[in-house]
């Protein structure tokens, strides 16, 4: 019986120590999203969901969104990155992006004849609803491609 108790105690202690070690091992980092050669198209803040998003696009995509936003063509590439936001710890009154929630990619390729093929992929995370409504794939593509580039001098 005594041996049994010692054994249980040892296992408990081992679990406690290993859990503690796992907790200590969790390290955090600062992420600068690697947009590769894509440039910032625009951004959005959703105060209900407490999220911020940045839309990136390549030059073809950027130009299309400026020109019309509807006449899409092969070669357009976009990434839509969503973050949870939080209070900036250095300055009360400012919110800043925090945890990275999701990354979506849209690429447009030539289809049959003169048509185009729009590919949509969730690269990371889960997509949150827009205005309380979960969008299907086609709606999500329309939502992202409806962005207009932010005005810059």
């Amino acid at each position: 019986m005594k041996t049994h108790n010692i054994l249980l105690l040892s296992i408990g202690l081992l679990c406690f120590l290993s859990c503690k070690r796992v907790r200590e091992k969790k390290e955090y980092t600062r992420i600068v999203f690697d947009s590769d050669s894509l440039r910032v198209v625009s951004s959005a803040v959703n105060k209900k969901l407490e999220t911020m998003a940045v839309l990136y696009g390549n030059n073809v995509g950027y130009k299309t969104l400026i020109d019309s936003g509807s006449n899409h063509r092969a070669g357009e590439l976009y990434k839509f990155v969503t973050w949870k936001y939080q209070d900036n710890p250095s300055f009360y009154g400012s919110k800043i992006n925090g945890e990275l929630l999701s990354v979506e990619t849209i690429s447009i390729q030539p289809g049959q004849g003169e048509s185009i093929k729009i590919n949509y992929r969730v690269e990371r995370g889960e997509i949150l609803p827009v205005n309380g409504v979960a969008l299907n794939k086609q709606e999500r593509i329309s939502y992202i491609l409806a962005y207009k580039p932010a005005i810059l001098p």
Partner: protein
Amino acid sequence: MANPVTAGSFELIKSIMKLSKQHYGKKTVVFSLLLLIALSGVFLQFKSTPLEYGPVTGKVEAPKEIVAILERSCFNCHSNENDLHWYEKIVPVSWLVNKDIKRAREIMNFSEWDKISRAEHIGKMWAVLNMVKADKMPLANYRILHPGSKVAESEIQTIKKYVLEITENQTAKPGNHGINYHETAGKIAASKNGVIYTDEFKKWKAISSSTLYENSMRVIYGNDIAVKAIEEENFHPWPDGAVVVKAVWEQIRNQYGEVRPGKFINAQFMVKDAARYKDTEGWGFAKFSTPELIPTGKTALFAAQSCIGCHRQLAGETGFLFSVPLKVNPKN
């Protein structure tokens, strides 16, 4: 290893003391030295420049409970109405006090409130709130000699309530954005301190995005040197050549209930050049406003007189930048 010059001087003083003691006796030497110090002190009182009290051109306008807090805790440095202790007017203490007051007045002067715009008043009050909230103001060494100056928690709440009240455009207006879009590449503008506007930043990576006071939204871009510094946490100091640009827009609400960038407000630059920008912790600040890119600052000293105050006190941990991405994402 001892400095040979210092060691030499020390030896010389020792020799003079020894000789003096031999000729005049220990008591006489000590008395003469004290007399010399006292006379030098009196002489310096007449030679030193006293603190200048400029006129009150326009006192801060706020509810009386806010003015009372500012008068008690801030006015002694951040105004032209300074009520100093007698010993703060005596050299050498006055040298330190006068230097601090001069710098404080440059950053924020509650006696010259009329010299800045309504938008700047609001920005300054947010700075006050942040400084007292982070317990950075009044300065710790000032509080030792002025224990009554500490801002109480209840007073911080009073300031917070007031600041939120005066902040306009709390709710983004509905509207379209991107209409009449035009982008003129290659626009040129220069700040008085030599920071040049470049539209190269449009191709840089976004290091973060943010909002301020619920009425503007920002995307912060960093060049390759800045991005590398963030990834390596190389903030103390940031490497020369790092450039961070914050593009600021008004908030516009869209049909999805989201907020998106509307009218362009300004682009704020921070350029790291330790040798050139010694007064502002090595950072060259610039703000180019409106699509015409009008630079802020009438002289090259504008950043030392405004920007660096908050950056120095509140963002020291990240090398004086507010918009460094937070360390909240798990590794891998």
